């Protein structure tokens, strides 16, 4: 039953969650709340409602987006003094002294044209600054919404105030990225409202968070590996259902962002070697080691036989594998027509160990499942270009802003990612000089000198 584990443990662990749940089930002690949860009628709907309430409780409130001139004026409003004093953890009488930096206020006063320059008390200074805010704004080109960054940059707030505001944001569950001026604005705007402090909760410190993230990463990684393993198995078992057979490639492309592998597997214009060999191969030898990724496949024991007009070829395909110094025969083919053999030979010799797909028990099976470009037509040519000039083409896909290179519906569209995650491409582009121009310009820059060219 969805949400039960979540709600139960939130209630067990968190006072805040208990309050949220208590607003529905009654203001009860923890044990009683848990008992009520265990005996819920129409549990599914009610648990969903409770989960939403808990999440709402933990969703940080939206803070005022900007600190305005009006907020500055509110600082001297007696109605906000208690809230400010509570935020600054000081008596009301010394709030402004604790909040504002006298030196910086004096500078601001001077900036705004005041030449008296004798006041040292921050409160008096601030009161003098207030009527001069429009002058200050005019002088620094500030609109009414730009006061937040200004007072932060000009260090109007004391270091103590910054600390206190940060602490306050944490205890109230406000967004951690909130700026000090935003927090101050929120304090001023919520003054007088009943504010519930979260109290000193147990915390994960930075190192604990690192460990937590690490575990999340590992678990997510294992889930994806599991997904890939099962998808490959399913695709082998049920190749006729396109959703099933395409899932591994879809996961590679959109979930693992292995864009090269994903595109090669999803885009058409290719045939498997198994199709091209037309059943002329024998049962693949049981070579299961990993191929060396950079080594090309080779063809050996090539023999042509048969009458001249229906010549056929027998050959073996070998591959260098990890841990072996000699190439291993991974597939034997007997009786392929000579006319068909020549282009297939070229394709096989262009394949490296890393090009073999993962699907298949032996290297021979993996080779048979490997896709190579169709031999004719636009699709075949494009497919070959994709293979040969992969880096250029994939950069183009990404840099031209294509985020959904395969727009057909995803195999299980409501659950799977359907877009590449890369950022928007640059607005501009660049072209460069060719080598001749580079050489010439460098030579020109040494005009008048005797130049000796070195090769």
């Amino acid at each position: 039953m969805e949400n039960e584990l979540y709600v139960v443990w939130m209630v067990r662990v968190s006072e805040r969650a208990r309050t949220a749940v208590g607003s529905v089930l009654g203001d009860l002690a923890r044990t009683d709340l848990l008992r009520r949860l265990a005996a819920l009628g129409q549990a599914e709907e009610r648990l969903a409602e409770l989960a939403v309430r808990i999440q709402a409780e933990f969703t940080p409130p939206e803070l005022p987006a900007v600190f305005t001139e009006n907020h500055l004026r509110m600082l001297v409003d007696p109605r906000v003094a208690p809230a400010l004093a509570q935020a600054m953890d000081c008596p009301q009488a010394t709030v402004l002294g604790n909040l504002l930096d006298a030196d910086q206020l004096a500078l601001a006063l001077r900036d705004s044209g005041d030449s008296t320059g004798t006041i040292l008390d921050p409160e008096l200074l601030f009161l003098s600054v207030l009527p001069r805010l429009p002058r200050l704004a005019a002088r620094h080109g500030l609109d009414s919404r730009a006061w937040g960054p200004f007072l932060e940059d000009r260090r109007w707030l004391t270091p103590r105030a910054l600390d206190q505001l940060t602490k306050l944001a944490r205890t109230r569950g406000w967004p951690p990225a909130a700026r000090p001026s935003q927090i101050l604005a929120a304090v001023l705007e919520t003054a007088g409202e009943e504010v519930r402090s979260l109290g000193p909760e147990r915390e994960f410190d930075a190192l604990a968070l690192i460990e937590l993230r690490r575990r999340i990463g590992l678990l997510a990684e294992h889930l994806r590996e599991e997904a890939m393993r099962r998808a490959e198995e399913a695709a082998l078992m049920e190749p006729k259902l396109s959703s099933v057979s395409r899932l591994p490639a879809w996961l590679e492309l959109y979930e693992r962002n292995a864009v090269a592998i994903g595109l090669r597997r999803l885009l058409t214009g290719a045939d498997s070697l198994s199709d091209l060999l037309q059943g002329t191969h024998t049962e693949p030898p049981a070579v299961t080691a990993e191929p060396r990724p950079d080594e090309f496949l080779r063809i050996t024991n090539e023999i042509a036989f048969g009458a001249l007009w229906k010549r056929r070829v027998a050959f073996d395909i070998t591959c260098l594998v990890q841990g072996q110094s000699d190439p291993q025969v991974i597939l034997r083919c007997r009786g392929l027509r000579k006319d068909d053999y020549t282009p297939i030979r070229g394709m096989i010799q262009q394949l490296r160990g890393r090009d073999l797909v993962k699907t298949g028990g032996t290297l021979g099976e993996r080779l048979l499942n490997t896709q190579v470009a169709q031999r004719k037509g636009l699709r075949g040519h494009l497919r070959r270009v994709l293979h040969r000039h992969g880096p250029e083409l994939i950069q183009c896909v990404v840099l031209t802003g294509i985020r959904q290179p395969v727009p057909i519906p995803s195999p299980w569209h409501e659950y799977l990612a359907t877009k590449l995650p890369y950022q928007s491409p640059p607005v501009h582009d660049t072209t460069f000089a060719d080598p001749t121009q580079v050489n010439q310009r460098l030579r020109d820059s040494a005009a008048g000198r005797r130049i000796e060219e070195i090769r």
Partner: protein
Amino acid sequence: MGENDPRIHALLDKLPYTWDRDDTELARQEFLRRRPAVSRRLVEALWRYWEDCASDRPLFDDPEHNLALALHAKAFGVDLTGVEKGGPLHEAVTRIADPALCGPLMPEAPAWGPRAALDPHIRAALRCALLRAWVAVDEQGPVEVLVVGDGLPEIRQQVVQAALVTSLRINGLTEAEGDGYVTDLIGVGVLRITAGSAGQQPAAGLLPVFGARHSSVPDDATATPRGALRDFVALLRSLQHETELVQVTEVGHEDLVEFGQTIRSLADRACADPAKALLRPIADTGGPDAVVSLLPYLRTAREQTTAWGASVGIDLSADLLTTERYQRLELAHQRVLADRLTMDAMLRRDRLLAEIDQQQTELTSYQVASREERTVRWDPTVLLSERWDEHLGRMIKLAEEEECDTEVYFAKNVPHIIKLKHAWAQRMTVLVDNLQTAVHRPHAPARQLAAGRFVDAVLRDAVPDESPATERAFRAWREDVAAMLWFEWRCSLREQLIDPSDLWTPHTAFVTRYLPAVDGDPAVLFTHAYSLVDEDRSAVLADARRGVLVVRDATDHAVRETAEDGAGGAQPPGWDELVRLAGRADCEEETFDSAFLRALRARPRDVVRRMVEELCPSPPDPGEAATIDDLLGRAVRAASLTEGMSRALAAMRGKAFLTARQCLDDVRGEPRWEARAWLLRAVVECTADEIPPQDIPGLLGGRLPGLPLDADRALDEAAELDQEYTTRWLAVLPDHDLDIGVRRLFHGLPPIRSMCREQGREQGGEREFAVWLFRHAVESARLARQLEEAGEELAEDHEAIDVALAKLGKAVEAILTGPFVGGMRGEAQDLFAMLTGEDPPKYGRAVVR
């Protein structure tokens, strides 16, 4: 005279307002002599003196020195905003904003769109979207790796993180030699890591490529610098294979050294013969193995070399790394690097030790048990679901479970696994030690690497982005130091008669080395300018009159364009022409490729879009969704027994009893299997009634008073379905703990595949199982994404435990008790235990894993 000069010491011990005329003069002279590597104490004292005692007059006669003092004061964190207007101080501070004096020196970085990416004359470019790596190898493997290019953010972050880790591992492993400085550079757009070629190091096994990139501490934590570098190369190769947005080229280390010597000899010859200039133009032979190297800008003039050395650089005070803003930056940087890495290794070590402990306890209890006790407490066979992978150092889930005689298991398997795990724990301990050395030793390689990275980024006006916190902290620090660094470089180049544009180019990077204090000379940061030099695509001019080697490549002559497709060149073929060409029977591969590339360079957007459209697969058959739904429905019914019982057990362990009941209610199967579900239901009811786990076997087995009514009813149901099994299970239950009781319920359950076969026997049953696997794969992928998205919401520094649970709880719940998961519940449970701070119950742990 040095910092150890007693007069300077005495001067700095005095408060500036007590300085007399001689003191002031001494301080001024010391400032001029030391510039640009002036100590923080001297700068702060001089600034305070100027501000408090002499603000009405310039401190130095030369306005440049006054500006320099203001810049150094700002770099050390002195607040200059309060300077009184109108005076010489204010004048110096105002000049900081003058871009001609203190502005950036680097030319504007080119925008990297498709046309830039496709330019055939570009290879090693700092802004390139493709990460190009040159791996210099000798007979023992990689010696040095140079990675050039910004790359895409998603890939860059992985590579930069791994490069930092690799460099740390290498420098933490290497014993300090000589002055012990770190020569690696982990800059923005350029990374260079060297493992050192000296010494015969033991060859270490290569890491498997797949999966290597996901672990920041590789399982096979190879204990040699070469091994660490190999791990890094393995990551690059795996990214190349997966994305093609990384390209690895292997070059001979000897060729790299020789190329460096060739360029150096040009500078030497220019120095020796100032009458002529030597030009090594671009040959562009197009050789794929051409070397690319990061080489220093060497001086080509000998005059006054005693002060400057053979390469162009400046000294800076190491005190720059002591300011509050830099400390914050370093802290943010280390949090995403060394701390995380150390924590990873410690975590793995602790986990291994805990596993060893657990297995040792089990082994001991088996060894001390009598034969009768063994018969009662242990099954005659053990079901092995995992094996220990010696190479990876972790348990690997077996595809098919294997039965093993219990006696053999405890006599051979367990001691062997304990021994192997011990060895792995030892390796992790060594790794932790190495990392701690790398971070905490006197010259702290981690600190040197960080300083090099950040100084280079400031000088080149780039921003390191390994984490948002680092980025923020860097921007704050840059605000303080950037103007001073640019200004001092300008001054230094002017004195050496070097045109800044000869040195500040789109292919320039800066290498900073930390030189510790020696003989009373303070520690300094030694920042030198380097250039990427491509054997085939860089032109080099060595001219004594220029004072420095001049390197030029295509990026020096960049022309900004709009991103729209244009004609771009002479008559490129259009798409229609490509279609026609491909349709011709005599179309050669090379002809088509060449035409395609020309078309792509001219109209990248149009051509790539058309290509993708042409190769797009057809949508699935309209009836396919219904077929899948139908097959899945049958598969779900077939799998309901195993799935339902596993989910119910996981839910019960998590105290989600409504869920556990619901899962068991949905179980459908033969009576003998359904009976087991009812027995598990009885356990659920007891647990839900808060009966302690140790009391449940006795209570259930004897059906004693106090047994909850629902549990009693469940036992009746089970007995009705399979009297014999129920009686047998209940009879032995009081002699065992609950864990064994639960495990017995799961023992011998038919695999899902055979259940599917049974369910869909008319069609062979394989289709149902295939669709069931398919649905599992979809769900696992979805949950991985959901979990990562939830993890991204965590705060960086502190997070209340309940807030973390609120953010992650739903994602973990779905993995623990949701349908179509399986296999990862054990790991999810560990994560959940961390979030809640409560260990899950001991019973059923092995089954849930």
